[in-house]
């Protein structure tokens, strides 16, 4: 536990304290956070929030614990925690607002789904449901805007920041014009990999990861670094384009016949890396395999599909059980196309075994993607080579991802050229900027993250079940200061689940409270909160602490 | 000329308490083919003396004076590389702890081969042959050459060490307490080996012991040491039968004799002086029943008292009286403990 230094200001609190002060005292609130060692920014933000709370006369205590313990409490002991640090990471499919808007706050997911905070607002539920089936973009946008408004005024989350993604590449190796920036995702994306043009001797792209590749498996959603690789080896029917919207990829065209019927035309002459042609059968197999139960992680993305018909060798028709606005993003851009001749027998075989497709590792993974698997040295590197026969062949020769858990080392290596693309840098942005500025070879590109950092409050527990309390807290927490101090400016203050990086979905004017401690106190006072002689915050009259010791 | 002549040898140890004069002006000589027994209480400097002779003193020991003439050369002045040649080849020393004198991780034969091949310049085959001869000579089964030292009993180790000492047929062998810690039968066997070698090879021997019976049985001459000095020296029968120094007399009293069970044992009360700060006069004075004025401040010198017999005592002139008195128990009782 840790305490902040700021003392409660007692100047403007009433000198006389209510008679029933004792019973109205708010218990010491616990803020869960990962330890400073593994998540320094979260820990520091927890400190700042605890400081703000102290200024309001609320006792808060930070409990640092490893992520596993934290998630165990947050997910499985849903009414045992007060506040916790949390984050939503950027993933391409999250470019569609559905997951954030629906899963995080819909009351149906409060019991054992993503809505672990227990947010429950029937009005919001309706909007969230509505946007799912509204295929018209403009109409849907209004709904999303409305949803964000509700989240902001209810202060469902204590928003902190959208960090800035910091990527560095060596402009002596790659033509700066060929590096592609993607909204909310930065320059580390498949379009850069495909487009980056080597201008010197070095034809390979060497980038870093800071954790192990766990598996290279088209049917297993494992670590994020795995997905960097899998999306290159395996094609998908659609891919999220740099503007954040899905566009046909392996499919030549995707045509919505009705709200529930989609016709897909495959590109001609596509080949698997082993030389066999990509057929409609393969596509159908790829979408049906998850339904066998042997590919559990992909099942949620195909359950909506009623049936798939092969019209001709290059044409398929998908029929959905009901309309789903995010289908292109969450399903067509998500599922890997897998060769049936390889995986068919494997899946059949697995049906009689306790294991499923997730534990199957091909010796040489075969996809149809723009890069071919070449080598994987466990805990060292993954090497892919350009698939020159691909319909969108990369310009680089090899794509090599080196595992470098040591941040210092990764910095050193981008400086001395051991790597030429800094794909992950959890360290100090300011330092990185200095280094890049001092180097004649490096270019840094920062992008506001699609994901965001926040503190979750447990709406099931007082005092967080009171909107006024949440609003006061939100007002008291200085998000600008967070961005400046904790992120050294490499973050944008957040007020919504939608990142400012996605102007199409982001509601620019949200009623999220601000104004600092003064404003917070006003909110509290209006809601009936009082302070005792020592400056401690008390519940409004008639309410007492039920969870205290 | 004697084979070994030690003149006024002084060996001091540097200790934290000061200089310990472990050997303080010792002179004696050993003739070719004779054997000298060196007796004295524990700590009187016997081992120091012989280690000093071949200059293998502990790091803090120095030869502070005197000379050691061996076979015509002064060992104290010899260069280290030169004396290394002398060691074992001309003069070998069987150390006090012969039990632990063999490298425990090699079979015994390795020690022989090392000496015979390295210093004796024999071929391997010859060396093995010679080692077998030596083993036979000391009455050990040649099979045992291949054993490790710890597989030998104490007596066998002692014999093996004797064999090793004889490997290069040295002119002089010094044996430091070769039979202490052995029981009688084994002791007897080892002494017999030494005696036979002396007879057959004409070995010159210096033997240290604190058991005068051993000296009586094995040696021609005996030197009695007390607190860093030789206090009596002469042929065995003279020194033991007609002791000229009270300490020697006392020593004889302290020995039980199996053949004379009726006699009472008499001990010399007290303990030897501190060698860091020895008394000014006679070093035995404090324990001596015949102590007179002079003993306290004047050091007696070793003087001849007859046929090759020397003693260091202020009362040599009244020796007959002392000898008589020394046999009485009460004489030795008077000394305060």
């Amino acid at each position, binding site marked *: 536990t840790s305490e902040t230094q700021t003392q409660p200001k007692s100047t403007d609190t009433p000198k006389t304290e209510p008679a029933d002060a004792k019973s109205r005292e708010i218990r010491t609130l616990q803020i869960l956070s990962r330890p400073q060692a593994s998540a320094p920014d979260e820990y520091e933000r927890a400190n700042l929030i605890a400081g703000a709370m102290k200024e309001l006369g609320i006792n808060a205590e930070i409990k640092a614990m490893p992520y596993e313990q934290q998630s165990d409490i947050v997910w499985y002991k849903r009414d045992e925690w007060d506040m916790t640090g949390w984050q939503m990471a950027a993933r391409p499919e999250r470019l569609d607002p559905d997951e954030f808007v629906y899963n995080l706050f819909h009351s149906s997911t409060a019991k054992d*789904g993503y809505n672990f905070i227990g947010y429950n607002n029937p009005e919001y539920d309706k909007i969230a449901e509505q946007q799912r089936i509204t295929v018209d973009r403009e109409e849907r946008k209004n709904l999303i805007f409305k949803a964000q408004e509700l989240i902001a005024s209810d202060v469902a989350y204590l928003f902190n920041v959208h960090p800035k993604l910091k990527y560095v590449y060596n402009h002596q190796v790659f033509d700066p014009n060929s590096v592609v920036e993607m909204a909310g995702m930065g320059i580390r994306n498949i379009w850069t990999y495909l487009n980056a043009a080597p201008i010197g001797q070095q034809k390979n792209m060497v980038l870093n990861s800071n954790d192990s590749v766990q598996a290279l498996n088209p049917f297993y959603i494992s670590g994020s670094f795995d997905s960097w690789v899998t999306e290159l080896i395996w094609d998908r029917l659609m891919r999220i384009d740099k503007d954040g919207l899905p566009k046909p990829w392996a499919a030549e065209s995707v045509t919505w016949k009705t709200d529930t019927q989609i016709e897909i035309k495959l590109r001609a002459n596509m080949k698997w890396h082993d030389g066999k042609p990509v057929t409609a059968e393969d596509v159908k197999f790829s979408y049906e395999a998850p339904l066998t139960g042997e590919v559990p992680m992909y099942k949620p993305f195909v359950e909506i599909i009623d049936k798939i018909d092969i019209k001709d060798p290059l044409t398929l028709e998908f029929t959905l059980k009901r309309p789903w606005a995010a289908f292109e993003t969450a399903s067509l851009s998500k599922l890997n196309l897998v060769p049936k001749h390889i995986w068919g027998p494997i899946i059949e075989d697995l049906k009689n075994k306790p294991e499923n497709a997730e534990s199957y590792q091909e010796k040489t993974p075969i996809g149809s993607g723009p890069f071919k698997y070449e080598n994987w040295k466990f805990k060292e590197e993954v090497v892919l080579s350009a698939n020159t026969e691909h319909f969108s062949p990369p310009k680089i020769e090899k794509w090599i991802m080196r595992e470098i858990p040591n941040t210092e080392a990764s910095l050193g290596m981008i400086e001395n050229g051991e790597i030429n693309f800094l794909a992950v840098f959890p360290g100090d942005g300011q330092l990185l900027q200095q280094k890049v500025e001092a180097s004649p070879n490096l270019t840094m590109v920062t992008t506001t993250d699609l994901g965001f950092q926040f503190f979750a409050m447990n709406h099931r527990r007082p005092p967080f079940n009171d909107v006024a309390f949440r609003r006061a807290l939100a007002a008291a927490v200085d998000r600008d200061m967070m961005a400046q101090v904790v992120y050294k400016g490499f973050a944008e203050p957040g007020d919504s689940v939608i990142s400012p990086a996605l102007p199409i979905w982001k509601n620019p004017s949200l009623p999220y409270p601000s104004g600092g401690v003064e404003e917070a106190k006003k909110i509290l006072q209006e809601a009936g909160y009082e302070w005792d002689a020592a400056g401690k915050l008390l519940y409004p009259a008639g309410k007492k602490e039920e969870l205290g010791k | 000329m004697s084979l070994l002549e030690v003149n006024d040898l002084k060996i001091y140890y540097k200790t934290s308490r000061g200089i310990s004069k472990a050997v303080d002006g010792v002179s004696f000589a050993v003739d070719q083919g004779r054997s000298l027994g060196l007796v004295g209480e524990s700590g009187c400097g016997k081992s120091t003396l012989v280690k000093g002779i071949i200059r293998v003193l502990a790091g803090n020991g120095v030869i502070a004076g005197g000379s050691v003439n061996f076979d015509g050369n002064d060992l104290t002045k010899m260069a280290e590389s030169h004396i290394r040649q002398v060691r074992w080849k001309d003069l070998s020393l069987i150390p006090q702890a012969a039990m632990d*004198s063999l490298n425990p991780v090699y079979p015994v034969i390795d020690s022989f081969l090392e000496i015979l091949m390295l210093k004796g310049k024999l071929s391997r085959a010859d060396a093995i042959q010679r080692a077998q001869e030596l083993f036979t000579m000391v009455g050990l089964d040649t099979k045992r050459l291949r054993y490790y030292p710890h597989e030998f009993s104490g007596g066998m180790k002692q014999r093996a060490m004797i064999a090793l000492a004889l490997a290069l047929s040295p002119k002089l062998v010094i044996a430091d307490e070769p039979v202490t810690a052995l029981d009688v039968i084994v002791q007897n066997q080892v002494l017999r080996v030494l005696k036979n070698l002396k007879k057959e090879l004409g070995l010159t021997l210096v033997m240290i012991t604190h058991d005068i019976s051993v000296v009586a049985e094995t040696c021609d001459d005996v030197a009695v040491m007390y607190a860093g000095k030789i206090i009596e020296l002469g042929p065995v029968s003279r020194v033991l039968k007609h002791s000229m120094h009270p300490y020697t007399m006392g020593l004889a009293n302290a020995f039980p004799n199996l053949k004379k069970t009726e006699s009472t044992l008499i001990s010399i009360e007290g303990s030897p002086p501190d060698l860091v700060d020895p008394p000014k006069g006679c070093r035995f004075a404090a324990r001596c029943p015949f102590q007179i004025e002079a003993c306290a401040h004047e050091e007696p010198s070793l003087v001849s008292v007859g046929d090759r017999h020397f003693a260091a005592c202020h009362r040599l002139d009244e020796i007959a009286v002392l000898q008589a008195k020394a046999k009485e128990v009460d004489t030795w009782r008077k000394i305060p403990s």
Partner: protein
Amino acid sequence: MGNRSKFIWSRLAQMVLTLWIIATILFFIFRLMPGNPLVAYIDPTFTKEQQDILMAQFGLDKPLWMQYLIYLANLVQGELGDSFKFRAPVMEVIWGVLPNTLYLMLFSFVIAYLVGILGGVLLAWKRKTRFETIGIIATLFTRSAPQMWVGMIVLVIFSFHLNWFPSGGASATGVVYASEWEKLTSLSFLKHLFLPSLTAAIYLMGLPLLLMRSNMLDVMGESYVEVARMRGLSEQRIMLKYAARNAALPVVTAMAVGIGYALGGNVVIEMVFSWPGLGRLLVNAVSASDYALAQGAFILSAAVMVIMNFVADILYSFLDPRVTFGKGR
């Protein structure tokens, strides 16, 4: 003979017993922790059915005692189960990094014990000189310095500033070795190996050095060394064949035990130098709640330690003819 084989058998039985107990303790530590062991791998959005599938896949659906029996049965067959994180047999995952740990360990031990033993002999030889005092103090420094710290400094100097050695990893980018041997003999691999080995060796060498020194001093006081001198043998011969040979016995034992320790992987060094080894694997597994993998890596290191302890005993008695076994004195 009877006694002897009885000793070996009983030692082997002891080893098995020890391992069994360690394995059991480990099993229960991992299983009795509150919460689902798969917590980090079961996304709460999974349906009950999906969760069950996963639990079944790792055998976690069965009652505890049955899990335990299965675990033991598997262990006996050298099966360590499947890694939660890598969805692959733990053995396979470990094999992926074991060679690197071995190389790092062997290399650093060779450096450390060469320097250590020679240094120890030298210090003993030069006893009571300033050289010795400085030597000891310097050694104590190396033995007291935190490894990550030494690693960081080494990294800054040799890699960031001088640029002599790569700053991490075990091989150069994109290199594929035809065989382990080719890898071992390639300059690039050795370059990668050097800094982490050096850092480990700096720490490791203190033990053999100090041990060797004090043993030398002990042995040099032994009668057989004194006698060797009396025999007029040369000083070198005495130092090496008599003093060092005997003084090295415990050092060799210490090395066997040390290898046991080191095979568990030097977590800190592997971390600082991004070395793909067992230690880092284990720490990653622990922090990623990959219990199956952590457990497997742990058991493996424990087994190696137990075996190396045994080897140390045997080695000692092999090298020292005096050692005896049995109940008597």
